[in-house]
């Protein structure tokens, strides 16, 4: 049985059908790259998986548990719990500008473990939890190379550093599957490398990831599987060798040709 199973996802905004039946599966520890021209529905797909959009039809099954079924009704609370299986790193970082780097990473875990806690915590317990969360945050920030920026504010960082904070912030919630929506598209070319390097390092820790990207070289070398999306459907799916080396669909061929032109 597949680790993640996405089944028949449909999504329309008003009259426009953006996703027209998306099916795919993933294994644990797999890295999936999603490529495709802009407007093909990549962002919408990630947003559906993170419950920022509600699909009109389809199911999402993780590890045998049905997380979402378009026929079901879910309360705010259920959605909140379900979406914690996924993490999302945005194209535009969306860090909280008023907090330091460290605080950005600690805030959500604290709110979940302390403020949303079922049982009443004593002051000592709260202090203990805070300490653990902060210790964990420091480790994660060290792993993305930001130990010397803990007390800086996002506005004092470069785009690449900000995106690495955003990755650390997502990791702190321990998502089962981490999604990236064009994590380097808002960056100057000389800064994309440091972010891609962090993502590559996550791959070595066997983290399951879905990465929407325009970096074809990166998709080819870092992904285990590649999806090429066009007009709201999966036009091509396979290993990087298959999709890049031997594409079956006309659309894939012409998309790949165009993206090669853009590079040279």
């Amino acid at each position: 049985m597949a680790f993640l199973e996405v089944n028949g996802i449909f999504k329309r905004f008003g009259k426009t059908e953006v996703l027209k039946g998306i099916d795919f599966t993933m294994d644990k520890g797999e890295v999936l790259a999603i490529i495709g021209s802009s407007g093909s529905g990549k962002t919408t797909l990630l947003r559906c998986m993170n419950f920022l959009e509600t699909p009109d039809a389809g199911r999402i099954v993780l590890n045998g548990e049905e997380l979402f079924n378009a026929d079901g009704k879910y309360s705010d609370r259920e959605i909140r719990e379900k979406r914690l299986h996924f993490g999302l790193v945005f194209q535009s970082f969306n860090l909280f500008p008023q907090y330091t780097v460290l605080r950005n990473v600690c805030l959500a875990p604290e709110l979940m473990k302390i403020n949303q806690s079922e049982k009443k915590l004593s002051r000592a317990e709260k202090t203990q939890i805070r300490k653990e969360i902060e210790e964990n945050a420091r480790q994660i920030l060290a792993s993305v190379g930001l130990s010397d920026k803990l007390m800086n504010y996002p506005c004092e960082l470069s785009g690449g550093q900000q995106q690495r904070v955003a990755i650390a912030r997502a990791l702190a919630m321990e998502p089962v599957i981490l999604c990236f929506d064009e994590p380097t598209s808002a960056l100057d070319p000389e800064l994309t490398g440091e972010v891609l390097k962090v993502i590559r390092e996550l791959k070595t820790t066997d983290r399951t990831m879905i990465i929407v990207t325009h970096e074809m070289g990166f998709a080819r070398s870092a992904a285990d599987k590649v999806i090429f999306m066009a007009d709201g459907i999966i036009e091509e799916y396979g290993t990087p060798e298959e999709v890049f080396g031997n594409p079956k669909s006309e659309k894939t061929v012409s998309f790949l040709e165009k993206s090669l032109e853009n590079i040279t």
Partner: protein
Amino acid sequence: MSFLEVTAQLSKGFLTTLQIFGITLAGALPLGLLITFGSMSKIKPIKWIFKVFVWIIRGTPLMLQIILVFYGPGLIGWDIKIDRLLAVIVAFIINYACYFSEIYRGGIESIPKGQYEAGQVLGMTKSQIFFKVVLFQVVKRIVPPMGNEIITLVKDTSLARVISVIELVKSAQDIISQKSLIWPLFYVGAFYLLFSGLLTILLNYAEKKLNYYQG
């Protein structure tokens, strides 16, 4: 009339001015937030009731509203005696709450959607997102326009004299007409300048404090 006597009499007026100012602020700041939530409500009729109300209050002179609050109840046959100062304060609170609500709304709407979404995907509740993520950013953005309104309020308090509340300007006017003195008028100006100057310093300080980050 000596300088000291004038000072004493003007101080009494100034106390009333301060009272109007302080109570209006204390009432309009929270009431404004309530009106903001009303005018941003997802329930259409509620939203429109609030929007029309704000439009009426902001579209008519505050002086008219003061007069209406004071004489209105009597004119429709209500036999109650309304305290003049109370009428002024009620009119001021409603009027300023409407202005504040528009500033709050602008501030809330100026926060990028990405901030809410970042909070959502991190598992925060709606209220956590509002109080822990959005609110502070809103406050930072609205301090300058709120400062303008607050300075305007200092000067608007002089409208209270339309129903004979003896605030600062009225108390000076009384001296002028009774004693044929002109200088208390300038003296009053100094009172206002000192007061608004103090507030400006305070507001600038707050603005500076909030400027530790950009955005």
